[in-house]
């Protein structure tokens, strides 16, 4: 029984390992450092045909073409920032899975802080008013007694 479970667990892990290898059948670079950069960049770029996948995950032809561009730019000695800039110039910020802060989406980035401040101000006002009302309540009867 335990042997069977072990076997199943092993089979399941191996199935996952296959998925993790991804779409590329062959390694792009012999140098592990370059290969790691290649894989990292691919995981950050959106495949625009199949919008919820990265180009590392997609087997669309466009994703394959974009991986080829990334591979060639790495081989040509371009930096990660230059490769990202290349993609942004052509496909816009949407191509990035980790969006940058720009003038047009600044409000989105600032929204959590802004909402927190608005909430804090509202809470402060509410608490102050309650306190003021409580003061009137306690002062009222005493004033009557004296």
């Amino acid at each position: 029984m335990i042997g069977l479970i072990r076997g199943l667990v092993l089979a399941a892990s191996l199935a996952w390992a296959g998925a993790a290898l991804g779409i590329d059948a062959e390694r792009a670079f012999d140098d592990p450092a370059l290969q790691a950069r290649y894989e990292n960049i691919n995981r950050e770029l959106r495949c625009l045909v199949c919008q919820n996948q990265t180009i590392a995950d997609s087997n669309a032809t466009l994703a394959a073409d974009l991986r080829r561009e990334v591979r060639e730019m790495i081989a040509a000695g371009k930096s990660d920032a230059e490769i990202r800039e290349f993609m942004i110039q052509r496909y816009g910020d949407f191509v990035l899975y980790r969006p940058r802060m720009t003038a047009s989406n600044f409000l989105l980035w600032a929204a959590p802080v802004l909402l927190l401040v608005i909430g804090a101000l509202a809470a402060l006002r509410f608490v102050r008013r309650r306190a003021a009302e409580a003061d009137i309540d306690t002062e009222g009867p005493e004033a009557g007694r004296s």
Partner: protein
Amino acid sequence: MLKFIVPLVLFLLIGVFLLIGLQRDPSYVPSPLIGKPAPEFTLPSLQDASYPVASRELLGQPWVLNVWGTWCGGCREEHDVLLTIARSNAVPLVGLNWKDDNAAAQRWLSDLGNPYAVVAVDHEGRVAIDWGVYGAPETFLIGPDGVVLYKHIAPMTLEVWNKEFVPRIEATRTPKGSET
């Protein structure tokens, strides 16, 4: 009174934003190329591989770049519209045959009619990447100065052509300051 108005206004405001959001097409990606110089290319022509199609030669007039492939269903859908547009002789229609088979593309044009002044062949899809193409059919309008004026992603329709392309083409032909 203010107690009710403030949440109501906030609610309506959020409602308006969500309503606008519902009507937007999530698969539409705005092109960063609009208002920027169109990427230059020189590619072999579909009809005669020894004759190169160079985007530079199109400078000085408005022109349209239509990205298509015989594998693309939407391209078949828009083909008759492109033929109608070509007959109007408004602008040269340049085809970018994207990751396609030359024989299949030539057969497509001889069977269905050829709306293009010239077709550039982009086998490897490099020019398409330069233009930020992600799904055919896509149609770009380029001004006489080589600047991208508009991009339509989806099959072309006469409504889109008349509403978005024609006025922009006419604007490039009106000398500045002579409109009054």
